[in-house]
Structure formats: structure tokens, C-alpha cells
């Protein structure tokens, strides 16, 4: 392959898309606070979400302390335990993972990777962050409200979510619902931006089928979020009315503490359907960006083109579509019609097909690659292993007969932490190590990064793997202590204590990451514009970190896909997407093939 032919699409040479009229900052406040630059907004999103993440991590410590050493910590009684798991779960899923992957990485990477100057509507984009911050403040306020935060479980099922036996029913549940509504409003403003920027704001030559998979993942997840969050929005509004106005959308007739309540005729199952119509796509809203990012990390750090690019794109789209028709696999024990269980088990198992295609393609990309075990690569590999592990236990839980005895045990906790807790978190870490040099111009410390990786990766296995076993023993989830059920062997409690100790260590290891993150801003090694020798556009900006508007005078023109690593017959081991074909130096491979 000596010559590099142009795709026919690349010949459209005019800038058809208007260059965005940017609002340049006039002072400190518009530059750092009310900034309309997607990159600043991305950093604000990420920083806020990481802060929430540390709160949620701290809460997991409290839960683990209680489970490992029941009775030692008097302030964690049953009610407090419920409140802690609820806040931990909701924060992690909505306010950390969704916010970092879409609000953080979406804002930073989409405009840069498709060659845009900014998001298409920077003002709405800025509002999106401030709504998110407001939602976070409302959520955190519930810790200080009378009665404390809600203890309804992150699924917020009525009737118990709003009844007086549940901790936080005074005000915590109201704040939670309001916070979610604000979050959804804010996300919508950002999500519309991400979707329209990808569809309509690309630079010359950047066809959809040349976009890096990161953009595909974030794009599809944003579309899904725009269609799935409405169900949560409606469920929250209706539950709020049940709580505040005394309507009975979800509330059947009940007797509470001997007296009959005013409620009657509502359907608690309806809430579960609405919640999971959001809740299952949410899993993939978190997973698809992670899939995309991992594909790019692997291709870059193994110096290989991604295997089966088109198949990867179609798999992302297929997973996105299918994930809207599997929601009731969370409801096998809810008492819905058994035929539903049959249908949803089938669709659930079908999703495994495109997902497995993706995993095979990752492996085949690595196959005989020039693998560099950099910190981002380690995290990407860690993701694949963890995700496969969680996916396999998902096959167990997707089958009705297997799920029924496992439902509401620690097995479920182990499963979802593997597949949507730890796996995406590993990707987030990997992505931060990978793109940090673009954001700050400096590398993060490598030794600390490796320490962080190994403790986190091995540690999370040590935490969550034994939980499968506890689940098989029948240890229930959401119990603040196991109690004295005779079928638990005494070793189960020893196992719990051991898990707790590992969890404390893993939590502490995150402080290493935090230190590295902050320390490297000033003291990291100078990175240059493209330290990983990567092909995609964000690494080809004229300046690092890129200024407002990203590209200087002219936006780049794209000539090829994002995966030209190790092209035979080409001197360099990678060809940037925007390098004109005539500039590609042919000849034997240069000695500096790899990553510094």
C-alpha cells in the first residue's frame, strides 16, 4: 500500500458549516466561572463530579465499616445505613458517572475530536453545568435537612419511599426528587448540544464513519439519555405529587401503624416500569462512552487500528437500541406477568451478542499489537477483564429462574459493581491519565499512576469477588447486618471484615490519584502537544492546552479515520487524521516507532 487514496467524501473542500461566533471572555469571571468554553465547562463538570465521587466513596467506607464490624459504630443504625446506601448509589450512578462521562468527557472531547470550535450552543451548555451544580447542592443539602437524606434505596420504590417508616421521609425524599428533576433539565441542555454538535458541527472531511469511537459512544449515550431521562422525570414528578399533594399514582390502599392511609388505587409496579425504563438504558449511558474511550485507548497504546471499526459502530448503535426493551429484567420478582419475564429474559440475552462482538474486537485489536503498558492502557485492560466478569454474572441474573433466588442478595451487588461501578470507573481513570496532558500540558506521574492502578484493580476484585460467594450463601443486600440466620457459616462474617479492610485500602489509594492529579498541574513532566503519538484531532491542536476556539485561524481538514497506526510502507508509526496525503512520509519505519 504505497499511495494513500483519498476517500471521495474528502473532496468537499468548502467550509460549509459556519464558524461559530464565539463569546470570548472579558475577565476572570467569564473566563473561569461563567465560561462558555466547552473545555472549561468540562473541567467544571469533572471537578464537581469527582468531589461528589469522594463523598460517595466515603459513604461506602461507612457502609463497609458497619458490615465488617457490626455494632462497633453506634451512629450507623439501620436507618442511617439505608440513608447511606441510597445516597451512595444515587450519587455514584447519576451525579458521578453520568456527569463525568457525558458532561465532562463529552464537553472536552466532542468539539476537539470532530474538529469543531465549540459546542453549537455554548450558552445553553454553560447553563447545563450550573443546573447540574444546583442539583448537586440540593442533593447534598438533604444531609442537613430535618430527618436527613432519604433511605428509600437508590431505586426510590414507592410505597415505602414516601411512607413514615422510611428514614428521610420528612424532607430527604423531596430534596432527592427535586434534585433529580433539576439534573434532568440541566442534562437536556447539555445533551442537545452534544448530539447536534456531532450531527451538524463537524469539520471538513470528518464523516460520521471517520469519528473516533469515543465520539460514537458519547453521542449514542447522549441520544439515549435524552430518551430515557424523560421516564425518570415523569416518575419523579408523579412521586413528588404522591408525597406532597396526596395523589395516588403509585400508592395502593395501605394500613400504616394501624390506621388506614388516604391513599388508594395506585400502582406501585407502574413506578418500577418507569424507573427501569430509565434505569436500564442508564447502565448503557454509562457503559457506551466507556466502550468508546476504551477502544481509543487500546488502539493508541497498542499502536494498532481498531479491529472491525464499522462493526464496533453498529454494535454501539444496536446496544443503544436494544437497551430500551430489556428494562423489566430488574423486575422478575415484582409480581408482574410471568410472560413479561420470558420476553425480557430473551431480549436481555440478545444484548449479549453485540456486547460480545465488542469484546472480541478489543481482543483482536490487541492481538499481536505493539502493546505499551502505560497507565491508560493498564486501566483499559483492567476494564475489559472487569467488564467481562460483570457481564458473565449478568447472564446468570438475566435468566428468570436463576435470578429469583439470587435477587436482592450480595450476588447482585457484586454483579452491578463489577459491570457498571468499577468497570466505568476504571475507564474514567484511564481517560483522565490519557487526556490530562492535553488539558494541562503536563503528564501525570507514572509511578504514582501505576501504584493507583494496581491497588484499585486488584483491590476491587478483592472486594467484590467474594461478594458473589456471599450472595450464593444467601446474604441479603441492603441489610445493615447479617444477623444470626443459621445458614450463614461463621466464616461469612470473617469474609465481611476482610472485604471492609480491603475497601478502606482501595479508598485510600484514591487519595494517591487525587494527589497526582493536583500535583502534576504544576510539577508534572512537560508533555508537548501529542505525547502518545495519537492520530485523532484533539492531539493535533496548534496549542496545548487548546485556547478558546481550539483551532487558531483555520479548522483542520480530515483525510482519514482515526486509526492509522503502523500503516505498512509509511515511515511514521501513526498518521494524524488531518495530515494531507502528500505530507505522509513513505519509506522504512523510523526508529522512534513507539510511545516515549
Amino acid at each position, binding site marked *: 500500500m504505497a499511495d494513500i487514496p483519498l476517500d471521495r467524501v474528502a473532496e468537499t473542500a468548502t467550509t460549509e458549516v459556519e464558524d461559530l461566533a464565539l463569546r470570548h471572555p472579558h475577565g476572570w469571571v467569564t473566563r473561569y466561572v461563567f465560561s462558555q468554553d466547552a473545555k472549561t465547562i468540562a473541567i467544571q463538570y469533572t471537578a464537581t463530579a469527582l468531589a461528589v465521587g469522594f463523598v460517595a466513596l466515603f459513604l461506602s467506607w461507612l457502609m463497609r465499616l458497619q458490615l465488617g464490624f457490626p455494632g462497633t459504630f453506634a451512629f450507623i443504625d439501620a436507618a442511617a445505613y439505608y440513608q447511606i446506601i441510597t445516597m451512595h448509589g444515587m450519587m455514584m450512578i447519576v451525579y458521578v458517572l453520568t456527569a463525568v462521562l457525558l458532561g465532562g468527557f463529552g464537553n472536552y472531547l466532542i468539539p476537539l475530536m470532530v474538529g469543531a470550535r465549540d459546542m453549537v450552543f455554548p*450558552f445553553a451548555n454553560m447553563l447545563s453545568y450550573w443546573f447540574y451544580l444546583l442539583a448537586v447542592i440540593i442533593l447534598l443539602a438533604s444531609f442537613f435537612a430535618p430527618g436527613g437524606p432519604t433511605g428509600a434505596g437508590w431505586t426510590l420504590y414507592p410505597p415505602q419511599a414516601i411512607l413514615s417508616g422510611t428514614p428521610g421521609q420528612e424532607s430527604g425524599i423531596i430534596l432527592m426528587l427535586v434534585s433529580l428533576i433539576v439534573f434532568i433539565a440541566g442534562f437536556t441542555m447539555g445533551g442537545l448540544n452534544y448530539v447536534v454538535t456531532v450531527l451538524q458541527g463537524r469539520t471538513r472531511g470528518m464523516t460520521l464513519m471517520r469519528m473516533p469511537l469515543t465520539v460514537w459512544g458519547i453521542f449514542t449515550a447522549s441520544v439515549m439519555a435524552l*430518551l430515557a431521562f424523560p421516564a425518570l422525570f415523569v416518575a419523579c414528578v408523579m412521586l413528588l405529587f404522591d408525597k406532597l399533594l396526596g*395523589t395516588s399514582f403509585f400508592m395502593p390502599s395501605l394500613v400504616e401503624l394501624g390506621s388506614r392511609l388516604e391513599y388508594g388505587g395506585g400502582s406501585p409496579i407502574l413506578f418500577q416500569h418507569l424507573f427501569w425504563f430509565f434505569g436500564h438504558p442508564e447502565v448503557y449511558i454509562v457503559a457506551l462512552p466507556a466502550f468508546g474511550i476504551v477502544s481509543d485507548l487500546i488502539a493508541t497504546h497498542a499502536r494498532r487500528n481498531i479491529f472491525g471499526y464499522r462493526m464496533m459502530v453498529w454494535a454501539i448503535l444496536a446496544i443503544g437500541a436494544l437497551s430500551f426493551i430489556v428494562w423489566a429484567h430488574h423486575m422478575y420478582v415484582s409480581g408482574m406477568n410471568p410472560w413479561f419475564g420470558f420476553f425480557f429474559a430473551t431480549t436481555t440475552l440478545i444484548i449479549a451478542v453485540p456486547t460480545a462482538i465488542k469484546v472480541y474486537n478489543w481482543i483482536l485489536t490487541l492481538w499481536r499489537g505493539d502493546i505499551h503498558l502505560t497507565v491508560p492502557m493498564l486501566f483499559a485492560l483492567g476494564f475489559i477483564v472487569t467488564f467481562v466478569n460483570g457481564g458473565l454474572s449478568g447472564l446468570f441474573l438475566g435468566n428468570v429462574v436463576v435470578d429469583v433466588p439470587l435477587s436482592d442478595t450480595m450476588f447482585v451487588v457484586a454483579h452491578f459493581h463489577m459491570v457498571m461501578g468499577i468497570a466505568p470507573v476504571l475507564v474514567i481513570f484511564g481517560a483522565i491519565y490519557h487526556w490530562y496532558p492535553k488539558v494541562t500540558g503536563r503528564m501525570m506521574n507514572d509511578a504514582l499512576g501505576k501504584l493507583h492502578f494496581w491497588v484499585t484493580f486488584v483491590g476491587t476484585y478483592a472486594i467484590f469477588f467474594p461478594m458473589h460467594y456471599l450472595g450464593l450463601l444467601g446474604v441479603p443486600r441492603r441489610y445493615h447486618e447479617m444477623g444470626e440466620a443459621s445458614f450463614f457459616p461463621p466464616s461469612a462474617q470473617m469474609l465481611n471484615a476482610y472485604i471492609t479492610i480491603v475497601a478502606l485500602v482501595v479508598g485510600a489509594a484514591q487519595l494517591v490519584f487525587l494527589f497526582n492529579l493536583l500535583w502534576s498541574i504544576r510539577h508534572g513532566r512537560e508533555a508537548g502537544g501529542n505525547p502518545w503519538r495519537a492520530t485523532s484531532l484533539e492531539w493535533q491542536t496548534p496549542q496545548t492546552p487548546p485556547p478558546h476556539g481550539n483551532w487558531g485561524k483555520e479548522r483542520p481538514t480530515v483525510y482519514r479515520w482515526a486509526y492509522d497506526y503502523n500503516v505498512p510502507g509509511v515511515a511514521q508509526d501513526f498518521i494524524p487524521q488531518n495530515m494531507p496525503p502528500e505530507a505522509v512520509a513513505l519509506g522504512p519505519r523510523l526508529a522512534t516507532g513507539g510511545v516515549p
Partner: protein
Amino acid sequence: MDTAFTEHRTREPAGGLATIVDDFSADQRAFRNVSWGKAMMWIFLLSDTFIFGTFLIGYMAARMSTTEPWPNASEVFALEIAGRHLPLILIAIMTFVLISSSGTMAMAVNCGYRRQRRATAALLVATAILGATFVGMQAFEWTKLIGEGVRPWGNPWGAAQFGSAFFMITGFHGTHVTIGVIFLLAIARKVIRGDFDHGRPGFFTGRRGRYEAVEIMGLYWHFVDLVWVFIFAFFYLW
């Protein structure tokens, strides 16, 4: 080695599905003649469709699962006018008003593209007035029902979910209409001031104004209208 790479780059234009994919994924924009604003409004409306759709499905599920009888809508929403008993009369008038407002909106879009500044502004204001009339009549209907004892948590005739769903769904739709009226007036002001003739930058966004804003407003307004048709069918006629 690297067959995937070679294949990807030199693929000849294929027929059938692959061509559709290539066209759709083409350079710079997926929808050739659609501006950013318009694309954003369409996608927002898609998302909003899911919200209204979920509200209506929630209402239907509640109606089917409740144990008490559902009040007869055509009786509840009847009025005595000049001694005659007219079922659903107010709703019929409201529907008529809202559909008419879609007509004036469409005319406003048309005049906008002809750059008839005054006519556009006048038609936008007319649309806003019709919209406000709709909201006014809805307020009247709410007042009447509240006077008869309908509450979100109960009513004199049967299932409590009747009132809950009624206030929630018409309230949410009415909010959409109200927001629409406010934006109609704001855009009318911009039109009459000549913002769209001179491309004056917006206060918040800094984008140059274009008559397309009228069309984008129109998309929203027609959507709100269309939603009403569904609410009318599912809530009042069922």
C-alpha cells in the same frame, strides 16, 4: 496485515444500505440543509415527546389499575349555556382556538421568510393572544372543577386518579403553552425591532438573529398543539 484498514479506505461506493449509510454519515453534517438551531429544536421535541408520552402512558396505566369507576368525562366537562346542556363544549372551543393559533403561526413563518417585518410581528402577536386565550380558558376550567370539588387527591364522582392525572397533564401542557406565549412575544419584539433584518446579536447567546428563529418557534408551537390533540383524544374522549 491491516486488511480492515485497507478495506476501510479504498471501499468503492457500494449499492443499497451501504450507500444510505455513506450519504447519511457524510461530510460535516448529517442533515444537509438543517441549521443548528432547527436540529436542536427537533431533537428537543423528540425528547419532549417521550415526556408527554410517558405522562399519557402513566395516566392510562393508572386508569386501568384503579379500583373505582372512572368519572364520565363528557359529563364532567359539560357546560350549561343559555339553558342548554352542552357536553365538552369548552374543550371544543379551546381546541379550536389552539388549532387556529397554529394557522396564524404558519402564516407568521411564511411572512418571515418574505421578510415582511410588520406582518410577521402582527401574526406572532396574534398567535400569542390565541395561546393566552387558551390558557385563560384552561384556568376557567380548573376553577370550575375545583369549585365542584375536584382535587388532585379526590373528586365527588369516582377514582381519585381522575383529578390527579387531569391537573398534572393539563398543567404540564398549559405550562408549555405559557412558555410558548412568552417566547412568541419575545420573538415578536425582536422582529418588530428589526433584529432579524440586521442580524443583531442576541443578548445571551451573541448569535446573529435570523428569520429562521420564527420557524423554529413555529416547530415548538405546532408540537404543543399536536400534543393537545392527543391529550384531547385520550383524556376527554376516552
